[in-house]
């Protein structure tokens, strides 16, 4: 049976409420199916209690819902153990946790962290902070004009011997390219460096198997995976997690507190101070279960067709320049572009008046935009519910905007 995006779309209350909108901003955040909203609502109506605390039955059920989410995530990403899954509030918090816990414990002046030029600010900034605080050095893997990482930059950096970690995105939130993470992990491990994968984008568009990848850390957010905001995941290998000090201090992350000190709890609770996102965990479970009904092969084929339609539509516009890939098959789920002499904010604003939701700006990837010598771009991104017809309609809307702004 062909993949039925219009049918899938009907499971999303947002689209019913906003039937005139063309949502082309799933890379910023995805819409949520009914079942996710229900799961969170049900949790609050029937199961609401704090976790790991109450000695009564409903608290046990709340704890089971929360810990059940951990198990769902573990299976979803094929981790070896569920204690390798830490819940945070977002990809951003997960990535900060790596820098601020693992980084503080293991890095000293002169150590090197390697980043790719594709990275989101949430990957870059925590390491820039570590640079200021601990005197580490940052080296960059550049990309070519089509967004392919220059692997020689990585090899050169690794040859320097001081590289402790390589942080790289699994799928760019600007160009849609997927760096060769398997190869990057192999090379980094050969040199004794760890690898942290930012899977914020990849997670909703391609199966992720942390055991096969053998990555050391991997982060994603619930809200880009058709789940709720306010919950994120950090996968970390068990033996690495055990070497990491607490990130935030508070309740649940301690074994014992005395007047003169404390003993931290074991991972993963060591990294989950305070009341965690419990209802959001129930929502994330529902999102993962919902997504599991679609074979990845079908999702990827659908989104590949969408990207082909997007490239065709965009390449038909005079003065339009796509950043990065020339071939739509190299751009997964998103494509960014600029129009000659026209500011992305004006275009996004005018498109918005026509009901098209596209993001304009640097998409939290300023170094990458500088690499392509543009201050900002427009981004079209798709999800499981996007239809080819929506993308085709963007063509005339862009031409109209172009006409309005023509000098």
């Amino acid at each position, binding site marked *: 049976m062909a993949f039925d995006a219009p049918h899938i779309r009907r499971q999303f209350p947002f689209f019913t409420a906003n039937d005139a909108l063309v949502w082309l901003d799933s890379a910023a955040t995805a819409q949520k199916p009914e079942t996710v909203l229900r799961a969170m609502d049900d949790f609050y109506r029937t199961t609401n209690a704090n976790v790991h605390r109450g000695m009564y039955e409903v608290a046990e059920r709340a704890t089971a819902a929360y810990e059940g989410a951990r198990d769902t995530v573990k299976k979803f990403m094929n981790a070896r153990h569920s204690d390798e899954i830490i819940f945070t509030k977002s990809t951003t918090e997960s990535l900060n946790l790596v820098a601020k816990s693992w980084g503080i414990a293991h890095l000293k002046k002169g150590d090197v962290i390697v980043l790719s030029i594709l990275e989101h600010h949430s990957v870059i900034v925590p390491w820039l902070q570590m640079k200021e605080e601990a005197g580490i050095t940052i080296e960059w893997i550049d990309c070519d004009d089509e967004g392919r990482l220059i692997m020689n930059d990585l090899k050169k950096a690794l040859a320097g011997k001081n590289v402790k970690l390589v942080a790289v995105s699994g799928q760019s939130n600007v160009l849609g390219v997927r760096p060769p993470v398997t190869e990057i992990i192999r090379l980094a491990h050969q040199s004794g460096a760890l690898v942290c994968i930012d899977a914020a984008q990849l997670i909703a568009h391609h199966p992720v198997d942390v055991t096969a990848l053998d990555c050391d850390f991997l982060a994603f957010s619930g809200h880009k995976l058709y789940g709720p905001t306010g919950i994120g995941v950090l996968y970390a290998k068990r033996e690495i997690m055990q070497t990491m000090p607490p990130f935030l201090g508070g309740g649940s992350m301690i074994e014992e507190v005395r007047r003169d000190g404390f003993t931290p709890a074991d991972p993963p609770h060591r990294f989950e101070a305070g009341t965690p996102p419990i209802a959001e965990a129930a929502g994330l479970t529902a999102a993962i279960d919902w997504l599991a009904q679609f074979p990845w092969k079908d999702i990827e084929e659908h989104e590949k067709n969408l990207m082909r339609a997007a490239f065709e539509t965009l390449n038909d516009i005079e003065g339009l320049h796509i950043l990065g890939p020339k071939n739509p098959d190299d751009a997964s789920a998103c494509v960014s572009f600029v129009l000659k002499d026209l*500011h*992305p904010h*004006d275009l996004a604003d005018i498109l918005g008046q026509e009901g098209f939701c596209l993001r304009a*700006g*640097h998409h939290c990837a300023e170094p990458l935009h500088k690499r392509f010598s543009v*201050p900002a771009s427009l981004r079209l991104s798709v999800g499981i519910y996007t239809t080819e017809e929506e993308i085709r309609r963007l063509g005339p809307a862009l031409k109209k905007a172009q006409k*309005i*702004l023509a000098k």
Partner: protein
Amino acid sequence: MDLYAENILDHYRSPRGKKLLKKPTIEHKEVNAGCGDSLTLHLLIKDDTIESVGWDGTGCAISQAGMSLLAEELPNTSVEKAAALSPAFIRKLLGVPVSERRLKCALLPLFALRNALRTVKKQPLLTWPELLEEDNA
């Protein structure tokens, strides 16, 4: 009414005063880092009055048209009066509804002007939160 009204588009297409002065009393540049809009403002001040204005910049239609409109207003305005121009004045000058998401585009020209004049008077520069607070007042 539409943000991209004819008057705004006219100033965007043919910006007034978009030329730097040969000998400005003061040159001041402001940018909206988030979107890459930038304005460089030149003022020629004589006897505490703005005699002429020149500017250069790149960015969206709103920031560029706004600067053009403001540049028409400024000649022969006293420094004191120019330094007191408010976000409300800019909203009136643009004459189109400015939404929250375009506010910084719309206010960039005023931000550049106010800080240019503060530089002349050697006062500390205005920050965005301060200017936005004035807009809310």
